[in-house]
């Protein structure tokens, strides 16, 4: 049986860990509330942009766009969005595993733009070509999304890579998060042999759907990347909150078990001492 001193030390240690996890839980909960508010506006932005581009691309004439044509390069660029820090359960590893599975399936040379130090280190350790890494510890900013979109567009137009995917976690509910891979470039258009759509009652694109795509895709990319970063940030804080909340609960259970064992040991020592005193007194009588 461990000594009383040893048990006492463990209780103190677990109690201080519990204080940290509880503080982290509260911080994550407050950040989650802020991110959820941001998510509702980000969804309005990126889902609106996605709907516009999907509609324009559904016209067979859209295949004339520079963003719809396949590029000569067989390399693939991945924007992988995870966290800068750990202590958020399986959040980082599930994104990394999905990215790895997609890369293995496509068997092409990859260029990774990592958002989040954990994404960069996860893929770097597995021998993937991480060409740039950005921090995600501060609140998502549109400027960061613009910088990443610019980098991707430059690389795509220069023929550095022929396809662009974003790997991120979509927020469904506080307890349900869905890691996803979304293709950003080239824009999927209707096949050449698709029947021409009647322009009556349809959305008009001036001068043509292909020209609209040419000028709209840079803004679309910024909005999509920003949307994915915000979705991922909400998931990160929700995952951290759940993980810290369960760590706090576990710490409480350990404290209760240790306190019980401490009290039992103390009681048995007292009982033993009484026994010794009584038997000593009896021996004297």
């Amino acid at each position, binding site marked *: 049986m461990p000594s009383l001193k040893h048990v006492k030390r463990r209780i103190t240690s677990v109690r201080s860990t519990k204080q940290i996890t509880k503080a982290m839980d509260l911080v994550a909960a407050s950040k989650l509330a802020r991110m959820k508010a941001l998510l509702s506006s980000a969804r309005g*932005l990126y889902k609106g942009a996605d709907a516009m581009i999907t509609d*324009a691309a559904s016209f067979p004439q859209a295949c004339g766009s520079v963003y719809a044509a396949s590029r000569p390069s067989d390399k693939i660029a991945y924007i992988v969005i995870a966290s800068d820090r750990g202590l958020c359960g399986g959040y980082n590893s599930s994104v990394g595993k999905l990215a790895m599975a997609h890369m293995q399936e496509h068997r092409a040379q990859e260029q990774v733009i990592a958002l989040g130090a954990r994404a960069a280190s996860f893929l770097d350790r597995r021998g993937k070509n991480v060409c740039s890494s950005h921090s995600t510890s501060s609140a998502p900013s549109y400027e960061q999304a613009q910088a990443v979109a610019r980098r991707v567009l430059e690389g795509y137009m220069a023929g550095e890579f022929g396809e662009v995917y974003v790997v991120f976690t979509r927020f469904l509910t506080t307890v349900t998060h869905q890691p996803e891979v979304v293709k950003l470039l080239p824009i999927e258009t209707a096949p050449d042999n698709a029947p021409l759509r009647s322009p009556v009652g349809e959305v008009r694109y001036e001068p043509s759907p292909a020209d609209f795509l040419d000028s709209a895709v840079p803004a679309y990319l910024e909005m999509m990347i920003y949307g994915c970063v915000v979705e991922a940030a909400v998931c990160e804080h929700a995952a951290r909150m759940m993980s810290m909340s369960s760590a706090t609960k576990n710490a409480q259970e350990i404290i209760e078990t240790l306190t019980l064992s401490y009290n039992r040991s103390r009681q048995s020592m007292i009982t033993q001492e009484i026994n010794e005193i009584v038997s000593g007194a009896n021996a004297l009588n």
Partner: protein
Amino acid sequence: MAEKKAFNLKVITPGGVKVEERAEMVIMRATTGDMGVLPGHEPCSAALDQGILRITAAGGRQRRLGVFGGLAKVEGDTLTVLTGLAQWPSEVEPELAQAERDECLVRLREERDHAHTQRDKELLNQALVRIELSEFRDEA
């Protein structure tokens, strides 16, 4: 007097909905040129350039909003503008915009690669829109 016809205008930015009101007319700077929207406009989509969105709200009040790129869609009774940044004239600091313009002009005089030059041109255009916008600070 009969009230003039109006439509819904919604400007969405990363920070949330910037404008949501009934408007009689909106003129915006599309990449293909200025584009005016009146009630009953046919459904259309456009990519936006950096420029000033001129809003005539229901009731005749005129306002200007700086819109720095984005997308616009007219569908049914609603014009939706999606943009990364939108600013009212009161949110613009004219001195900062002028400083930005001067910095961009200095950088553009230096010989730099294509990507940097393009970026500086965008920033210069942004600063010029801000300077123009700041002239309407009293309007709001």
